[in-house]
């Protein structure tokens, strides 16, 4: 009786897994079919003659490789710059007693409540007046003003015992040296979380790059894929090939950092 119940549970779980993964499988299967096999009433599940033609077409007839490269540059620069900007101020908030620290901290944290959508019109006018519209810099810079990384890092730095710092000061190390040699290495775990989340958020960004960039060669991959449907309306096999190509970098990133990503979300509850 108990065995049978367990078996039913296992079967239900396997079914759930299959249902959940199916859309992804379907994306790959569609991308391997010829279009006339996709747009037909004679429905077949698997491709009769699997083909990579859609992938070749995607690379040849669109800027998909450029879009991937743009997204990669944007995400990597955002990741590095976020760390360079956030770590020092997080350290100052956690360990340096300077006047106005608390007010400043709450002012910065209040920035977490500002939905980005409110800023799109003024930011666009701002970047337009700097002549930066249509550049990768425009896609990167506004993300750097988001304070969530500081919140995570400060919480971690606060847990580092003061004695470690004091020992370094007694040995004659200055503030910068202490920060670079002691705080940064000890805070590696939190820093990894921050930069991984920065990477993912920059990679998945859609609304702002859609506004800030309007030349198809400079699109990010998310904007490029969204516009695919406009330009290749009914070529579903080609569109799915594009979607697969667009997802590969993220999938690799996920496979490497699976645990870190999940733990990072559990810790901070940051939603895209």
């Amino acid at each position: 009786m108990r065995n049978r119940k367990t078996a039913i549970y296992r079967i239900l779980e396997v079914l759930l897994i299959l249902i959940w993964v199916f859309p992804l499988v379907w994306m790959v299967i569609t991308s391997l079919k010829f279009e006339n096999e996709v747009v037909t009433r004679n429905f077949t599940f698997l491709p009769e003659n699997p083909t990579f033609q859609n992938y070749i077409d995607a690379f040849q007839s669109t800027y998909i490789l450029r879009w991937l490269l743009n997204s990669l540059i944007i995400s990597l620069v955002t990741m590095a710059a976020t760390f360079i900007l956030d770590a020092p101020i997080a350290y100052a908030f956690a360990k340096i007693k300077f006047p106005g620290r608390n007010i400043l901290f709450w002012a910065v944290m209040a920035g977490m409540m500002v939905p980005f959508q409110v800023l799109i019109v003024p930011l666009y006018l701002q970047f337009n007046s700097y002549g930066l519209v249509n550049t990768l810099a425009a896609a990167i810079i506004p993300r750097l003003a988001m304070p969530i990384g500081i919140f995570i890092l400060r919480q971690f730095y606060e847990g580092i015992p003061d004695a470690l710092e004091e020992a370094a000061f007694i040995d004659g190390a200055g503030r910068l040296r202490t920060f670079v040699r002691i705080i940064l290495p000890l805070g590696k775990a939190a820093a990894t979380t921050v930069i991984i989340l920065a990477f993912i958020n920059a990679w998945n960004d859609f609304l702002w790059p859609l506004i800030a960039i309007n030349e198809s060669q400079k699109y990010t991959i998310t904007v490029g894929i969204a516009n695919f449907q406009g330009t290749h309306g009914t070529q579903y096999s080609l569109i799915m090939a594009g979607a697969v190509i667009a997802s590969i970098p993220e999938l690799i990133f996920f496979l490497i950092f699976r645990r870190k990503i999940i733990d990072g979300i559990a810790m901070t509850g940051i939603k895209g």
Partner: protein
Amino acid sequence: MIPGNKDTRDGILFSLPFLIVFVLFMVYPLLFGFYISFFQWNILGTPKFLGLQNYAELFQDAKFWSSLWHTVQFVLMTTPVLLVMGFLMALLVTSKSPLKGILETCFFVPYIFSMTVVATLWAWIMQKDFGIINQVLGLLGKEGVSWLTSDKNAMWSISIATYWWTAGFNMVLFTAGIKQISKEIYESAIVDGASTFQSIIHITIPLVKPTTILCLILQIIASFNVFGQVYVMTGGGPAGSTRVLIQYIYETGFSYFRMGYSAAMSYILFVIIMAVSVMQYVFLGRRND
């Protein structure tokens, strides 16, 4: 603490790089946007001061109200379902099942795909003539459903794609919440003869309440900000029946170049989201007391 205490200098020096970016690209645009919302403001041409006219116009703009209503519809269609799904997934992932690791990865994996990929994929799955759902319905002798092309179904179809995409996110938060409940509570419940179902109702659900509130607030905010799914899957159609507020803000600002009016609408959205955020602090604050 430090010889020749330079805390003030150091504090400022370490904070300055971020603060410059923060003031330039967060504080300034926030204030500038508010300022713009009182003007007739195009990219070209001189801005003209209108006072409260943009806001007055808003209240009489049927498109604004319908977009706001569609956004609220989306919030109502997605939030409860996503909370329940996330919770049930978390129960599976924290169970004793040998498949729990695979389940966790499978449930979470859609979330790492970018929203435009997810929306494109579901637009294809739900395509009226050749999409797989209608193909299979056809094989069963049933008529296909107008998933994205009927105003009755379109918002639900967008919601279904969203369930698949982000339920895994809520699962992660619920999993963390459930893992914090001490094992001993469950053990003593078993000794008292409680079934698994009773344990879930009387132990897990009440004790995971702080996580539920956190998820609820995050989900409401995320759903209020819906845009990309709609943009890719229906473009706001059919006949404007899925046009959401951010899409209307986007179109007003960047298709019709009515920046002032667009900014005024963003501020209304801002006030709504702020109200939700404040509720978060009220509820979570009470928990900490």
